[in-house]
């Protein structure tokens, strides 16, 4: 974990209520695929955890959805303004499990963290297939970015207005895969978990107090005991997940 002052280079709408923000630090920003930043937002007491979309040296990209006051304030910030950030948080995805043909599955704002993962898996020469799930056509984003990496991309929409109609699971069995990497709302993760025929890594979203493991505000019961989503997660391995009803 590092505490860094980030300067906003760009903050643009990407889809309705979804923004893409580019940030720059004076020093390299630690950011592995699946890790997150915890941003101090002026006027909000607790920080806002946002996953890393892409990172390169001193630059980091985030894609976030406006869901409350904190993200609303973020969306109104302009280039040149600064954000205090805790960086390099969370365990991130483990690329060593990917096998030759990993399948990356993202739903809504669960899509962004898969981008840096796809980029690194592609750099390792893996045949990366990506399923991006959205509610409807106008909410979709990032399809071209994954295509540009050389990934095979399937888009699903719940209402069928773009790509394949249905949930992300509808596209899972189009081709065999060696490992699943997923991020999205919990109902999606559950469905993917049930349909998954290989090993997998699932990234969970949770409200957090601190984001670095000390407040114990985001505990999650797993096969191997309680884990903190912020510090021991947000990525859990398929075999350790315990779904609670």
């Amino acid at each position, binding site marked *: 974990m590092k505490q860094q002052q980030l300067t906003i280079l760009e903050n643009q709408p990407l889809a309705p209520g979804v923004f893409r923000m580019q940030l720059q630090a004076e020093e390299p920003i630690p950011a592995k695929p699946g890790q997150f930043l915890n941003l101090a937002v002026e006027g909000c*007491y607790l920080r806002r955890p946002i996953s890393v979309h892409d990172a390169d040296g001193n630059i980091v990209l985030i894609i976030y959805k406006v869901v409350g006051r904190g993200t609303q304030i973020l969306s109104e910030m302009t280039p040149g303004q600064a954000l205090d950030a*805790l960086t390099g948080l969370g365990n991130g995805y483990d690329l060593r499990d990917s096998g030759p043909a990993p399948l990356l599955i993202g739903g809504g704002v669960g899509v962004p963290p898969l981008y840096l993962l796809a980029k690194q898996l592609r750099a390792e020469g893996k045949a990366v297939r990506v399923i991006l799930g959205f509610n409807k056509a106008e909410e979709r984003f990032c399809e071209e970015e994954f295509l540009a990496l050389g990934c095979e991309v399937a888009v699903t929409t719940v209402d069928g207005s773009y790509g394949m109609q249905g949930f992300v699971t509808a596209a899972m069995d189009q081709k065999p895969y060696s490992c699943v990497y997923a991020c999205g709302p919990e109902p999606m993760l559950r469905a993917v978990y049930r349909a998954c025929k290989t090993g997998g890594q699932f990234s969970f979203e949770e409200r957090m107090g*601190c984001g670095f493991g*000390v*407040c114990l*505000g985001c*505990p999650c019961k797993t096969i191997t005991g309680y884990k903190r989503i912020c510090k021991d997660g947000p990525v859990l391995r398929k075999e350790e997940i315990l779904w609670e009803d």
Partner: protein
Amino acid sequence: MINAVGLQNPGLEATIREELPKLRKVFHKPVMANISGFSIEEYRTVAARLDQEDGIGWLEINVSCPNVHGGGMSFGTSPASAAEVTAAVKAVTTKPVIMKLSPNVTDIAAIAKACEDAGADGISLINTLLGMRIDLKTRRPVIANKMGGFSGPAIFPVALRMVYQAASAVKIPVIGMGGVSTAEDVIEMMLAGATAVGVGAANLIDPFACPRILDTLPAVMDRYGIENLNSVIGGALDG
């Protein structure tokens, strides 16, 4: 901030076996152990066991827990039950005992005095206030537990007032805490009678809150003409 995190911990034996050795690797001075219990017997058992641990400097006793044998009322809400816990712990340990008081009471001074009379070596306050928020969309409490512990800068004036009241009532040291986030807050707490000051919620926002407060303290002392922090302790108390 409102939390219902509770008092998650690995238990007495696992703390001694795993947590204390880990702490010793990064922190070489004695540490404080905070103890909570749902019965007098639990407080006694844990305190007696921790008394044997060299790495533990003193015990802080959280009396904000409900007494399962006393109708669920928290030990900290009456002078008599707070004194009972104090005496039970003091009887099984030679380490200093600090009683951590709940602010959710009608007369904090009486409770502080009862702890002192029962042998407490110090008191610390305040624990979190009981708070609640309701989600306008769902019309249900935001916290799954309905209510939770309210902390952060918003509670500082309440904490300061209670430190002042408690410090007026006892001669033993008072550790002031509750919403402290700046060097100015530290000095204000000390003026209200605190001999030491604790920082909680601020660490969650800024993991470097404590070093930052320590760094800025000398300049703030200079600004208010304070040469030695000891000189301000209780400075705002009458008499």
